[in-house]
């Protein structure tokens, strides 16, 4: 048998149910792994030592230790969004995704580091210090769910949850050489996910292989009365979609995803993956998405506008940090609370969002971005009439060095070029490892039509089973 920490989620649950390993063995192995490596990686903001004694049911995730991004509410465990403004905040309830994991017997091993309020692509915006890439400690793990991806890659958790507003699951999954899924908008409940940009974000699994992602997604998906935008999919059985067979499937290759700014070595790795799938019977054809170059500005205007509204709730009265002083008037107290509580990127987005929504600029920026969103979505709708999936790089480049982009906001936004269109269109996408550049992982992005996660998983699984990148593990 493989070493305990090398078992995938699916294998681990199987071993636990058969009694081949005990819950104590699993908990001890993971907690000591965290003690061994997390001082170097800083993937966790909080570790749940009490999971030793929590009781669990013999469900689909029986006793499997799962890490949760720190913007997803966990009853009794700190949830800070990696922000000073929520330092010490302990939610009185579980997010629906967390409740569903617990109901299937999963253990919550801890809360993972992230860019503050999920605003960033490198995890450098955490108020508690960055997470380091397990493949190269000088590089970023990607973001904003950098801790969740690094923890899974480095065997500090068997699987994790992240959230994806503009690529925050797929980017770190690609940079850390693991699998990450951004589900169709509405497939997974956002109840208990601390809101950043409601119309764009979804919670998604980060795992070591495609089967684990299908398993975890089947647990967390489906309608929740507490999130009126959530819906039931035609079928939650994603495991049955996992066949090594792409015969008869048609893939579109949107050429704009390979445009200027794409590292040619990344493009080459993705093309090798496309050719491999072709050799197994998939047909492909290049396709053009004329409005794709407008995705980045449209995305950032919408995300910042929604953020400026969502983050208005942080006033220090009901929870979180407060600069309250007896007798001071409210504008002063709230403005000081927010000045001291928020980091630079969060302030920048709140201010820009406030601008885009303000009188005189609303039509020119916010409304314009929403209209461009319609056109971008139209490009995707059109493509899915012809193609089962679309294939592209997840990120235009491999993980960059810590400090390389953090001083220049626009340079950081640019790396999201291949991930934000998916959120604007609300479609599902998965990132699977498809090669290496300079010892750093590269991700293949597979997109499908809304609620067509089955075909996305089928292509991802076929590629994975015919390649070996998912079996490689970081040197740490």
């Amino acid at each position, binding site marked *: 048998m493989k070493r305990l920490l090398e078992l995938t989620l699916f294998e681990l649950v199987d071993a636990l149910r058969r009694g081949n390993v005990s819950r104590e063995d699993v908990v001890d192995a993971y907690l000591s792994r965290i003690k061994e490596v997390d001082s170097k990686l800083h993937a966790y903001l909080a570790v749940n030592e009490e999971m030793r004694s929590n009781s669990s049911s013999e469900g689909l995730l029986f006793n499997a230790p799962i890490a949760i991004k720190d913007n997803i509410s966990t009853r009794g465990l700190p949830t800070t969004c990696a922000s000073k403004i929520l330092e010490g905040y302990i939610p009185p309830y579980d997010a629906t995704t967390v409740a569903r994991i617990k109901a299937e017997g999963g253990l919550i091993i801890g809360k993972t580091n992230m860019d503050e309020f999920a605003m960033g692509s490198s995890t450098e915006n955490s108020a508690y210090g960055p997470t380091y890439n397990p493949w190269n400690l000088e590089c970023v793990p990607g973001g904003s769910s950098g801790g969740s991806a690094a923890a899974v890659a480095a065997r500090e958790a068997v699987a994790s949850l992240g959230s994806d507003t503009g690529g925050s699951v797929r980017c770190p999954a690609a940079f850390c050489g693991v699998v990450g899924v951004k589900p169709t908008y*509405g497939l997974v409940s956002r109840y208990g996910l601390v809101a950043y940009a409601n119309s764009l974000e979804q919670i998604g699994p980060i795992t070591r292989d495609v089967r684990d992602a299908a398993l975890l997604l089947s647990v967390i998906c489906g309608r929740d009365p507490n999130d009126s935008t959530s819906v039931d999919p035609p079928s939650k059985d994603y495991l049955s979609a996992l066949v090594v067979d792409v015969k008869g499937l048609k893939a579109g290759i949107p050429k704009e995803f390979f445009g200027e700014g794409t590292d040619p070595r990344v493009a080459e790795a993705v093309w090798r993956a496309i050719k491999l799938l072709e050799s197994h019977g998939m047909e492909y054809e290049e396709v053009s998405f004329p409005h794709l170059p407008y995705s980045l500005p449209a995305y950032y205007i919408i995300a910042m506008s929604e953020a400026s509204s969502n983050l208005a709730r942080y006033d220090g009265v009901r929870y979180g940090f407060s600069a309250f002083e007896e007798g001071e008037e409210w504008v002063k107290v*709230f403005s000081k609370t927010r000045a001291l509580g928020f980091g630079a990127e969060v302030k920048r987005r709140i201010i820009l969002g406030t601008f885009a929504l303000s009188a005189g600029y609303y039509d020119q920026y916010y409304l314009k971005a929403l209209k*461009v969103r319609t056109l971008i979505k139209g490009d995707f709708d059109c493509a899915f009439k012809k193609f089962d999936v679309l294939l592209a790089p997840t990120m235009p480049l491999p993980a960059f060095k810590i400090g390389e982009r953090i001083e220049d906001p626009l340079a950081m936004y640019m790396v999201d070029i291949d991930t934000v269109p998916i959120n604007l269109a609300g479609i599902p996408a998965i990132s699977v490892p498809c090669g290496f550049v300079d010892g750093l992982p590269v991700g293949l992005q597979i997109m499908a039509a809304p609620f067509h996660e089955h075909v996305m998983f089928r292509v991802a699984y076929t590629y994975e089973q015919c390649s070996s990148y998912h079996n490689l593990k970081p040197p740490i």
Partner: protein
Amino acid sequence: MASRKLVSLEQTEHLSWLAKVELSEEEKRVFTEQLNRILEFFRKLDEVDTSNVQPTYHVVELTNVFREDEPASPLPQEEALRNAAHKKNGYFVAPKIV
């Protein structure tokens, strides 16, 4: 890159007041410069003809999701107050409004 000035230092100040985020003098200066560069980048959207296009607020075609209005058990008072920095007699303490 920034050929026109889209936001002045005074506007940044006004936005910080609207957003209730106090900015230091240094932050005002740096943010004004960054805001101009970012907004200039956003203006790329001006190239797109959207004259006959409807906005997409939301991608899910759902409207008016209703449920029965049945009472459920609320958070107990102590739980609801537990995360507040300042409380008194079972209430949140807020700064002076009027």
